[in-house]
């Protein structure tokens, strides 16, 4: 059941550059459990889109199935959404993106949705450098089916019922780096200050932007002994850097500087300003990113912030060399070779 929110809008709400209030980026009232990490992530998406003055109808929200995958109904109510089938968000997003290269694509998934049933599609969306924000709301469990361990549950993590997970976790972030994802970040639903700029950066990144957000399930995986509880995660955060988005689209000659503050230019000229907090970590070097994640893991830390960035590869449309006009806007004139050509073709087959 979705409740339609009261339509009342405060007349004095601040507006962003294109004249929208924050409210206009909200969605229907959430039906998730009170305190669910996923709702905080929805709020961060709302904030990021408001801040960036993105027109809501230029956004498409695509998800799989799960509590996490329900959230597209709870943010950006003026955007089209597609709550598809379990684990297959990446393929639906790929098709949608191919049809119209001009929208912003949010793919929302859960750890069950991505790391189990959706693993193959996740890997291949990375390989295609699909231009989208791929956000996993990672709670280490299957919320909607009542709390079974997921493949991202840590070895040794305790479930609410008291059982201990015996399997090694799939680390989505290091997998993504390993596979060559061009933007990989990790965050925590409880850290809006970090999450909002990461989402903004991900939107500006022209390619596959993956954000793995630890997002506690208050109902099934917030107990003592769980490594995905609010308490545990708060106590085990490592941070690579603080990140700011610099919107001036000026050509920057020096792309990257050694030191504690570095700037990286994105395809569209936007810049990321990173105040590095982790040593020995270079956001543009895969091995260094993997090492940083592995080292953090060995110290029982979850490394958050931007982990890896690569602006050298074009997205799928560049790879396929598609025309500038979105494919869904081409008409008969550009699509149909016509009657005369067909007669020629016929002659060639005679």
């Amino acid at each position, binding site marked *: *059941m*979705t409740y*339609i929110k009261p339509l009342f809008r405060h007349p004095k709400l601040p507006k962003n550059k294109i004249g929208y209030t924050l409210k206009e980026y909200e969605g229907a009232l959430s039906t998730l459990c009170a305190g669910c990490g996923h709702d905080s992530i929805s709020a961060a998406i709302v904030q990021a889109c408001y801040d960036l003055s993105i*027109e*809501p*109808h*230029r*956004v*498409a929200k*695509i998800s799989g199935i799960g509590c996490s995958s329900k959230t597209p*109904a709870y943010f950006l109510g*003026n*955007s*089209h*959404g*597609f*709550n*598809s*089938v379990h684990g*297959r968000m*990446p*393929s*639906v997003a*790929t*098709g*949608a*993106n*191919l*049809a*119209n290269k*001009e*929208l912003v694509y949010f793919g929302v998934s859960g750890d069950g949705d991505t790391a189990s049933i959706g693993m*193959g*599609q996740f*890997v*291949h969306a990375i390989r*295609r450098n699909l231009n989208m924000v791929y956000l996993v709301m990672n709670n280490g469990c299957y919320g909607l089916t009542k709390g079974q361990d997921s493949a991202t549950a840590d070895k040794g993590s305790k479930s609410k019922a008291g059982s201990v997970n015996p399997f090694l976790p799939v680390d989505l972030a290091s997998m993504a780096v390993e596979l060559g994802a061009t933007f990989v970040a990790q965050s925590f639903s409880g850290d809006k200050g970090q999450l909002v700029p990461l989402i903004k950066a991900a939107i500006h990144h022209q390619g596959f932007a993956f954000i793995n957000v630890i997002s506690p399930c208050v109902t099934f995986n917030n107990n003592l002994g769980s490594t995905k509880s609010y308490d545990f995660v708060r106590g085990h955060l490592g941070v690579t850097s603080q990140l700011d988005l610099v919107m001036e689209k000026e050509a920057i000659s020096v792309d990257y500087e050694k030191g504690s503050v570095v700037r990286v230019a994105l395809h569209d000229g936007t810049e990321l300003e990173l105040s590095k907090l982790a040593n020995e970590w270079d956001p543009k070097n895969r091995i260094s990113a993997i090492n940083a994640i592995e080292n953090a893991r060995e110290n029982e830390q979850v490394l958050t912030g931007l982990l890896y960035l690569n602006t050298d590869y074009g997205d*799928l*449309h560049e790879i*396929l*060399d*598609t*025309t*500038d006009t*979105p*494919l*869904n806007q*081409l008409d*008969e004139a*550009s*699509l*149909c*070779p*016509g*009657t005369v*050509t*067909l007669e020629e*073709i*016929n002659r060639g087959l*005679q």
Partner: protein
Amino acid sequence: MIQKMPKKNSTSGVNDFIVRFANVNGTGSASANFLFAKSIFRMGIPVTPKNIFPSNIQGLPTWYEVRVSEKGYLGRREGIDLMVAVNAQSLAQDIQNVKPGGYLIYDSTKRLPGELVRPDIHYMGIPMMELCNEHFTNPRQRQLFKNIIYVGALAVFLRIEFEVLVQLLNEQFAGKEKLVPPNIQALKLGMDYVKEHFEYPLPFHLERRDLIGDKIMVDGNSACALGAIYGGATVVAWYPITPSTSVAEAFEKFAEKYRVDKATGKKNYAIVQAEDELAAIGMVIGANWNGARSFTATSGPGVSLMNEFMGLAYFAEVPAVLIDVQRAGPSTGMPTRTQQSDLLLAAYASHGDTKHILLFPSTPKECFELSAQSFDLAEELQTLVVLMTDLDLGMNDHVSDPFVWQKDRKYRRGKVLSADELDGLGRYGRYLDTDGDGIPYRTIAGTHPTKGAFTTRGTSRDEYAVYTEDNKAYQRNMERLVKKWETAKSLVPAPKEYQEGKSSEFGMLFFGTSIFSAEEAKDILTGKGISLDALRIKAFPFHEKVRSFVEDHQVLFVIEQNRDGQMRTLLINELEVAPSKLIPVLNFDGMPITADTIAKAIADYLYQENHLHHDLYQTLV
């Protein structure tokens, strides 16, 4: 050389015989065999080649069977008049398969073992390898030209016009002209050898005719691909699988030619080789959801994997086009054999109450037409459309009427609201049945800043696309989907009627590649004074005319290429017809059905039910 002997039952006559080539796959025989078939086509004579190939890449037996039919019968027929047996592995079996009185061409470089000599067929040994080794030095050429040599031999035995062969070689090697002379040399080696050593032509042979007209020769997969190009498909997602792979490959070939923007060199299409079939159909659904025409092509195993997404397309009402080039199932089955056995799966795919639109092309021309039309239907009906072809149609070359495209034809994109239309509307309801035809109005992302946005989902929702578990709202929606199904019946292509009104109590029903043999069987029976009405089904749900045909006839022979009579099941179930009226006529061994199989099955029934006199029956079996 083996002695010539007088044989019995030798076939004779003009333009009516079957030649089978027995080769090893991966040895380049395909183009030589095609040259043979195409030359007959160019001589104005109806011809049907069929490739019977193994599910491997190299070194196994493969056959190419060519039927020549003055009367234009393009189906398969049993009985090999002439075997060109150049594969040692299968030689013994190939020799057995020649019909008594028939002919065998073999490579006489080595002597044929005595146990392979049958007294009742003609042996014509040509030392192909020896000739090659004598005249060519390059080992690859030696292998390839063996094949051209036997084409040369056939040219003399069967009276293929030399000029036609030369012309075809010139066309084939346009751009690589220096390959033409050695090919012609090889041809001549074969021709000369025959002229020197044998009597020719054979009692059966070719004579130029004017029976082809403006017809074309092409495979169904290419035709489907071209239909998709004309139909405006821009996003293709696919995963390789025999026998559908060449649909995507042909689309790419055509697209590179006809869909590249002249000014920028950029592509007006996108093709993605997906990681599997689930991803392929997911991409198709995503693209169509976002307003681009998009399709995928696969075969049985892929359709099985696509089930969940097919149900989503049905229930969430997203257009999608799926081309199913059927092969022999179940499971991996016989991947390189033909069947029409995915009907039940495709018609009711996925859990819950679902029904999907199916189209059944019979010829390359129809592949083209129905492929293009499937995009219109998918968008008009906002649902999945499955184009059901098969390996026989898809991968074999067929003589077909030429492709047709109306000059002023526009894409029918169905009910999609523009920004202006949204502005003119009160509250937009994605699933409101405004027009009473069960088809609601879509909007595409990005259309309007504040109106028309909604969430598409596979879960139940109300008319305004708001999630609900209300049982009434769910039921209303399911009933509207039934109404849409009713609407579909008037939009899908009508069946092909073979007569005006009704002229018999007996009717034949068929579809897809059974067309050729069914039509031939009809003629065979008519020739015996047994006349049946006939109807060729082109779509599911069944058009009104299918219903009335079934109602009007007392006994209907349902001809199909599967074990369980799947079309018959659909007819019984959807038309509520008494099963006893529908007599299954089946072939499911993976080979295309033959006219004799059909005629015999019908005769059997008629005889058993006392509609046929014993004497007449005997002439038919």
